[in-house]
């Protein structure tokens, strides 16, 4: 009897909290679908009386969102490829070789994860200015080709768990270290590569501050910048804002549902040092 009551209590709490977490999303979708005059009704209606799907198209066309989409895709694809190549190389180096200063360098690598972004963004802006990368997608792409501490850390932990006998056997067969890296290790670390690809796509797609600081020209904008700009340009166009918010969130949401198990496991593995 008491057990049943406990179960009931737990489920009620879980359902109430789920509603709390999902409600703003539902509000977003229904607001996007309402007719403009329905937005300013009191009491507000949860469901629109007629569903205006054309709101999505109108909002998308009110700014060059196709162009922003292309920019976002370029940045996301190129940073993800760069991260995968560079991070796996570096992680392999840290995990499989003994060399002078290795442990010291690895501690530095871990320590860089603690540096607040504010401290490096100002000089980075000035450096990129010098390189001629300001107002260019390069500023967002190129730094990612040099590996990211967090991904390197994840990959290294995984590579260290692979038995070393594997590469010794390959070495006997005459393979050199680079062949061992891409023929034996890359296929083996594939699960972690997928994980960092997902993390990186989410992070780059959703990034706002990077594009905000490094890009000025509207033709270079990414989707998040375009969305944020909505507020200034169309002060009261709540429909449009919600419609574009929804459209931009589709990619991360789909990715999340596809890779949910991986993301959950990946996030959880970060705390187990």
């Amino acid at each position, binding site marked *: 009897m008491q057990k049943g009551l406990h*179960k009931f209590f*737990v489920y009620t709490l*879980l359902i109430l*909290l*789920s509603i709390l*977490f*999902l409600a*703003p*999303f539902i509000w977003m979708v229904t*607001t996007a679908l309402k007719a403009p005059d329905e*937005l*300013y009704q*009191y009491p*507000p209606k949860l469901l629109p009386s007629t569903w205006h799907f054309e709101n999505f198209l109108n909002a998308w066309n009110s700014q060059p969102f196709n162009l922003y989409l292309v920019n976002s895709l370029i940045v996301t694809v190129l940073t993800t490829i760069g991260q995968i190549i560079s991070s796996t190389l*570096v992680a392999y*180096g*840290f995990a499989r*070789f*003994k*060399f002078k200063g*290795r442990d010291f360098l690895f501690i*530095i*690598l871990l320590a*860089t994860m*603690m*540096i*607040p972004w*504010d*401290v*490096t*963004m*100002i*000089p*980075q*802006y*000035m450096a990129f200015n010098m390189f001629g990368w300001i107002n260019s997608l390069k500023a967002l792409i190129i*730094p990612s*080709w*040099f*590996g990211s501490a967090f991904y390197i850390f994840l990959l290294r932990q995984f590579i260290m768990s692979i038995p070393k006998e594997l590469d010794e056997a390959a070495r006997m067969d005459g393979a050199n270290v680079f062949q061992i890296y891409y023929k034996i290790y890359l296929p083996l670390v594939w699960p972690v590569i997928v994980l960092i690809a997902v993390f990186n796509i989410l992070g780059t797609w*959703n*990034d*706002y*501050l990077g594009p905000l600081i490094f890009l000025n020209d509207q033709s270079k904008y990414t989707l*998040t910048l375009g*969305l*944020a700009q909505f*507020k200034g340009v169309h002060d009261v166009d709540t429909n449009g*804002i919600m419609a574009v918010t929804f459209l931009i969130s589709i990619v*991360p*949401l789909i*990715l*999340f549902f596809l890779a949910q198990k991986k993301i*959950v496991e990946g*996030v*959880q*593995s*970060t*705390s*187990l040092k």
Partner: protein
Amino acid sequence: MKTDVGVNAEYNPVYQKKKKWNKIVPYLFISPWIIGFIVFTLGPLLFSFIISFFNWPIVGEKKFIGLTNYITMFTDDPLFWSSLWITLKFALFFVPLNIILALLLAMLLNQKVKGSSWFRTFFYVPSVISGVALAMIWGTVYDGEYGILNYLLSLIGIEGPNWLNDTSWALVAMVIASLWGQGTMMLIFLSGLKNIPQDLYEAAEIDGAGKIYKFFKITVPLLTPTILFNLIMTIIGAFQTLTLALVLTGGGPLQSTYFYAMYVYENAFKYFKMGYSSANAWVMFIIILSLTMLVFKSSSVWVYYENEVKNDK
């Protein structure tokens, strides 16, 4: 590796060359990170430290001014103090609430209930969308006149404030919106809970322990390392909160949500006072570093490590 070459190999020039090569190979593998670290982290870090002692407009003459930036900040810039105070206030509410909420959700999910992976998805979903999208959604929810939140409050007889236009409520609104993205903390707590050996609870039950006893004597102590990790991550995150403020309130009304990160951002990219904003950023770095150290230092008192106890026995 020495086994596959002969005894005299040390004097063999081919072997000597190979040995040298073998020494270089590891550095080749990690070279991307080393270059990236020097160019994008260490270099900028040193550079920003140096220019924090300069008057450094983005165009125009640069001038060494010693500690003037730091002195100005502390004695002659009310915005420095107010933004720091607002950030501290935000952190003071957000950090504990975020940890408690994430822990509560994780504990609920850790019950043996059907569909718990669904609930986990619902609680995590806000964490995968962009901060800009999140801010936009909350902007319409909080709307003083037509927002759904105030309507819902009115149903239970509460007259909601004009959230984002009210100096005493805007920061509260920020805390609530930020709590919505607690998903990562929740997942980390969940894995911490799953790692607690079940037999500890069983043993306690045999001794007749109740739920509250088990929570405070088993769950909490064994979870303290996870709490420490989440605490540090939340503190670091709280001090860098920027996107939400930029998009949702722009620091207003009357600078009541003008966070320290926004102060640094505007000094750098609105007023282009690069030297001054670098000094701002270093003060923030030092504050975060000292807070982290403080938490670490305190952890010897309240964080429980299993092997410590084993050693005691």
